[in-house]
């Protein structure tokens, strides 16, 4: 039973989840998790911004571009996750995969 899941997840499923400083030029599909750094530039449906690690003192500021629907909670300072891949040093997000994270689904307070 467990074997089936293992095989399935190893072949078909699974996207690694990384912090901006852990990306290190990897170009495969990953989910990046980080904090949005101001300023956020908008042009039509495309937004451009940089993200940094949520924790730790890494100085990496990864440039990101994303086209598609943006969640209501999105703004500078929020923690987000975004699926996509690195192209020419810029992380290009896949449409519809931008998710804002809050500390708990049910509480709106205490943003760190």
């Amino acid at each position: 039973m467990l074997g089936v899941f293992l095989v399935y997840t190893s072949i078909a499923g699974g996207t690694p989840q990384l912090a901006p400083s852990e990306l290190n030029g990897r170009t495969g599909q990953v989910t990046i998790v980080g904090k949005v750094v101001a300023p956020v530039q908008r042009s039509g449906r495309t937004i451009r911004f940089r993200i940094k690690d949520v924790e730790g003192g890494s100085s990496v500021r990864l440039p990101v571009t994303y086209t598609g629907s943006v969640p209501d909670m999105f703004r500078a300072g929020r923690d987000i996750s975004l699926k996509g891949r690195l192209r020419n040093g810029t992380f290009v997000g896949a449409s519809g995969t931008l998710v804002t994270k809050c500390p708990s689904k049910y509480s709106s307070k205490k943003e760190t």
Partner: protein
Amino acid sequence: MPELGRAALIVCLGLAVYAVVAGAAAALRRNRRLAESAENAVVASFATALVASLVLLVALVQNDFGLVYVADHTSRELPLGYTISAFWGGQEGSLLLWLLILTGFSAAAVLLARRSAPSLLAWTVPILGGVIVFFAFMLVAVSSPFATQAAPADGAGLNPSLQNPYMLAHPPMLYLGFVGLTIPFAFAMGALAARRSDELWIVVTRRWTLLAWTFLGFGQLLGAHWAYVEVGWGGYFAWDPVENAALMPWLAATAFLHSVMIQEKRGMLKIWNVLLVIGSFALALFGTFLTRSGIISSIHSFTESSIGPWFLGFIGLVLFASIALVLSRLPLLRSKTRLESPVSREATFLYNNLLLVAFCLTILWGVLYPILTEALHGEPVTVGPPYYNFFLKAFGLPLLLLMGIGPLIAWRRASLRGLGRIFAWPASVALATGVLLVLLGAGSSIPGLVGYTFCAFVLASIVLEFARGTRARHALGSSSWTGALASLVGRNRRRYGGYVVHASIVLLAIGVIGSSAYDTVAEQRLRPGDTMAIGGYDLRYRGLEERRGANAQELRAVVDVSRDGERIGTLEPGKNRYFAEQQVSNEAAIRSDRLNGEDLFLIADQIDADGTLFLKGLVKPLVNLIWIAGFVFLAGAAIALWPDAREQRRLALRYGRAEALARA
């Protein structure tokens, strides 16, 4: 006032500790008076939890921002209904609600079982007490809802997406379900600890399991509807860990509800049933843990959360202690009979159980996968909807088919000829439906087509069961056909209530398949006056409207909807900007077609200052059957739950002797 709340919780903890110690001592020494005193402590713990809950409720309603919890989850502008729902809007209040329901259910179960099965209570009471100790301890020492502060001028407000009527009912329903699963667990463990090998615990807890399962099922559907109308991304279920948290115990409990019938009728599957009841309870705890600990966002936030490690420790303790108990009582759990044939009703139930548990484990694996991979490789890997949807089809479609086979197939051993005779009619209906659907163009999705064919098969077999039973009753002399039907259902409430629930699952399947396998999506950038076509609808964007609501500034895009050149209405998707919380939320607009159950779903994805609208539209056929299924589900569950004097007499005869022996 906060002092009163804190004191009530401390007394509650004390009573629960007493129930454990005195109850265990009484069970060991067979001291009836001490046992009764432990039972009374459980009942009294409900009174203290009620006092603590009332204190919090009053503080919420009076905007007593001196309480940290009240200030963090409400504001002066928040309407009264949502102020009350803030009770379960945060971690501390949710735990208090758990405790309130837990003590309430425990008290009711103890009082009821005192009359019907007093001997079963000996070890059940200390086990119930143990669970109460955990939650009372969490509220007293780890996560108190009564922490105080210097009162700020206004509170932080409630998360806008929680400001919805559904949030008044959905979380309490889920908690009623989660907590309700404690009762069958405690009685099963109590029976094992007392070395009882009979089925009395199943009989005593059948309605509790059914009730918890009904709440859990209906609560999830409410949550799905909330996600659909309020969160506004156009779906109702996203395999989010928080959603999975409620689905897993429901699946385990569904398996349990089916397999206990085999134990009652044939004395089989005893170990399996005990494991399922342990699993359901552990998954209910795990579900609370998942939604409350923050482990989902990261393994790191888990260690920072105050309650996470405690919960994990408690789940570990529950699993360890109950598995150890099962192992020490293995000889008691030996089956009286064996499976005679792989083609029989028992076997169908067994396959149904394996599929349900397999699906439950699939979800558990998916939820745990990021945590496991992070622990092993330092890099979490997540699995998304494709993983879950694959297994939903792989396990869900055979389950659907079994739902049509199970009720018709013979017990013990079914002959091939018998099978042919019984299934000729449902199978032909299914085949005809399949052909008709292909002609209508449903072949665009093969899983959808297979699913619908199975749905027709199940519905036909349910109708056949009702028709056969009613005809038999009518032949026995019922005056009218409706009278025959009523007496048929009335005399076999469990069975026919179960069939009604099956019918609701078919409706659910039809709705889910229609809205996921046959939906249409379109996105377009619109200037005022522009038009857009989607799935037979023509949309025309008229312009923006802005108005001031009670607690939010409301921006709406006015969109005219027409079909076949005829105007059929106006939809207003938009955004709300909440004053107190400083947050924006998406407000989707939905037009439901009453005739064919189809929805047109509009989302104002982005509204630019110059009036440009990025509009997303979805057409979801048959989606409304999902919500109708909820009411059919409730009706079926109510039929199965309804008190049945005849059943009580039969059980009293069967277990009266065992009860007398145990008391002697």
